[in-house]
């Protein structure tokens, strides 16, 4: 544990220092004194300033609104101040970057075209080492599109997608054939997907990708680090396909719903480490499908929280070589679901005598070492029926389903095959320091409901006490008879 913590700390230092170098580069004005663009300046057009600039020039755009269709074909720093806006009026791409080492910082970019064929974007990067930072993107089809842009940095941008049907939206951030990129502190919500394809060694940290279709979709991208992101209320929080050496840590993947929706999906992923994430209230917390795909490789799920999901973890019967340890499974409708008929084989549920926490564990811990003395076994008859007849899921949350489980407990001959066994279940859920912070709930709400409840109880008690007294006099002449007749 200490070693892992030290390693995370080291990694954090490396990431932070690399970000610092980047920002140092940004703030360095260079030898050039800089070119100023504003509505009353000598130069009133950004395009003109770019033509006039030399390699390494700093162009400051102070206030005003400027047309789109810009091409940055030199290594310049283009910085917007005083609320500078680039407005494409609904036509084409706003800023195309075709030379390496360009910085675009501090602008409001709005009004791209709406062609999916031409991939109209706010910022389209076809060159290496671009830095796109502190921009606000509004009413755009695609937001920031790195098309072949190794070593680029996308930091602290806000992308607000065009409010159209999800299939007609573009991707807030799209990364395509671009290795070694850093995507940090961005917000890209209410769009289509966040895409990271064919791009190795990406670092994706502290972003918010909420209410999209795919919060984040990784494909053919090895060596990614995905840490501290918020991937909530999407159809799928994070889906990783055909990738290797992926580290997924300290993310929040909650409230992702839909018939096939879920927090995390791993398909054909080798050497994945999923650690300290929070999966709450998803259709499926995590789905594992042919991962790992190569022999001799193990994937790890460590210290995650799976709570209130319909299914905590869904595993395909063909999946082998996954290790689950230190995870907390709390009140999922079904903690672990086997998708289809078959058996869970070669899945490790405990390492060095440390298993997982299961909220429905019914064993005891006589030696008080924090580990249950009896193994946790999953053999719920209703769950196994639902595995075979999915339409019976209609009867979840009903006393009938409890009755079925109870009958299997009482009559062993009904008991289904054991789905899996955790030999060392934890008595308490482990709280990993990696887990994302929890938002505080508003205090006023709490006081209001408390008062309402207390007043309700008191009123009810007072009311019953009043009613329990004998009536002293009739309410109306006609009722006097009723009272004398009815007292029991």
């Amino acid at each position, binding site marked *: 544990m200490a070693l892992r913590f030290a390693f995370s700390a080291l990694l954090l230092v490396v990431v932070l220092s690399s970000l610092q170098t980047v920002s140092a580069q940004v703030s360095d004005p260079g030898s050039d004194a800089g070119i100023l663009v504003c509505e009353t300046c000598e130069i009133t057009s950004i395009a003109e300033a770019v033509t006039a600039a030399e390699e390494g020039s700093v162009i400051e755009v102070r206030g005003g609104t400027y047309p789109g269709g810009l091409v940055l074909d030199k290594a310049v720093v283009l910085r917007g101040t005083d609320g500078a806006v680039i407005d494409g009026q609904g036509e084409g791409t706003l800023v195309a970057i075709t030379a390496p080492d360009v910085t675009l910082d501090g602008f409001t970019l709005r009004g791209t075209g709406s062609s999916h064929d031409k991939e109209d974007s706010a910022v389209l990067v076809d060159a290496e080492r671009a830095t796109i930072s502190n921009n606000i993107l509004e009413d755009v089809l695609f937001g920031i599109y790195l098309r072949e842009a190794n070593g680029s940095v996308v930091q602290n941008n806000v992308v607000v997608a065009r409010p159209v049907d999800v299939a007609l939206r573009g991707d807030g951030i799209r990364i395509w054939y671009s290795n070694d990129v850093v995507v940090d502190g961005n917000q890209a919500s209410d769009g289509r997907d966040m895409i990271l394809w064919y791009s190795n060694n990406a670092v994706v940290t502290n972003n918010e990708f909420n209410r999209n279709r795919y919060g984040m979709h990784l494909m053919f991208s090895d060596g990614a680090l995905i840490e501290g992101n918020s991937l909530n209320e999407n159809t799928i929080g994070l889906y990783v396909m055909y990738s290797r050496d992926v580290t997924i840590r300290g993310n*929040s993947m*909650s*409230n992702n*719903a*839909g018939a096939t929706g879920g927090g995390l999906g791993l398909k054909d992923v080798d050497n994945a480490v999923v650690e300290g994430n929070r999966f*709450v*209230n998803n*259709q499926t917390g995590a789905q594992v499908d042919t991962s790992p795909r190569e022999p001799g490789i193990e994937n790890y799920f460590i210290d995650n*929280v799976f*709570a*209130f999901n*319909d299914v905590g973890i869904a595993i395909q019967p063909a999946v082998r070589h996954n290790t689950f340890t230190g995870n*907390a499974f*709390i*009140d999922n*409708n079904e903690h672990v679901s086997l998708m289809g008929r078959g058996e869970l084989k070669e899945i490790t549920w405990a390492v060095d005598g440390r298993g997982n926490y299961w*909220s429905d564990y019914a064993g005891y811990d006589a030696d008080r070492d924090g580990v249950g003395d009896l193994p946790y076994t999953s053999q719920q008859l209703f769950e196994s029926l*639902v595995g075979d*007849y999915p*339409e*019976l*899921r*209609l*009867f979840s*949350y*009903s*006393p*009938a389903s*409890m*009755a*079925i489980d109870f009958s299997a407990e009482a009559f062993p001959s009904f008991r289904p095959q054991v789905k899996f066994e955790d030999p060392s279940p934890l008595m308490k*859920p482990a*709280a990993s320091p990696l887990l*994302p912070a*929890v*938002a505080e*709930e508003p205090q006023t*709400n*709490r006081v*209001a*409901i*408390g008062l*309402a*409840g*207390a007043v*309700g*109880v008191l009123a*009810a008690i007072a*009311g019953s006490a009043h*009613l*329990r007294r004998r*009536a002293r006099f009739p*309410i109306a002449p*006609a*009722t006097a*008879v*009723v009272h004398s*007749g*009815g007292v*029991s």
Partner: protein
Amino acid sequence: MDRAVVAAIAVKETRTAVRHRWFVLYTLIFTALITGFAAVALSASDLTGQAGFGRTSAGLLNLLLLMVPLIGLTTGAQVIVGDRQDRSLDYLLAQPITALEVFAGKFLGAAASFILLLLVGFGGAGVVMAIRGGAGGAGDFLVLVLLTLLLGLAMLSVGIAISSFSRQTAAALGIALTCWLLFVIVGDLGIMGSSIVLGVSSESLLTLTMLNPLDVFKLVSVDLLHTSLDVLGPAGIYAVDRFGSSFSYLMLGLLALWIIVPLPIGYWLFKRTDFQ
């Protein structure tokens, strides 16, 4: 129908119900169970980050589905038959009031005492949630309370219909408990069994379950408290596709029918039994 007479009979009925030992017992049990559940359900909230009642209330459904119909059916079943058995009903009906006034007053009085019982229980749960910091889902909690009241009233109506033709309290209670068993377990098990053996389609499965007021309550609760019915598998997804957002209104309508329909039947049975 004289409103003053109905009100007088209703107040008298509420008084009788509240004085009943069953009422005290049911209130204590219901409050203890629901408050305890709220306390336990919230204990893991700091780890999951969702202290709200919304998701945990799903687990509460099971408890409500067992308790509320049991209380509603058995209290309803004792309303008229009790008076009939101790002969006070003959005396009451000999007064210059109509049978409809008596029946309406009895129902309203029993409903008032039953609602009081449920609100005490939910009030206790509300206090616990506020103390433990689970008020994030206050809206969801209120929805659940209102739905439970509807379910309770539906069961009470059925109970009163049972009591209006029974000659003896014991018989009425027997019928009420049989109904409870049918609604709670036997009905669902029967549908499950036949769907496994006969391979019933999602559509017919959903339609069959809609006949059971408890399943209707569960469906509408899941629909309103979860974001979607997907958690109920293929049949749930079918419901979303077929009915869309009008599904909850349909279910609420069905619940309302279960409150309204047993009453005229009960009244007819009551008149037939006591006015021959």
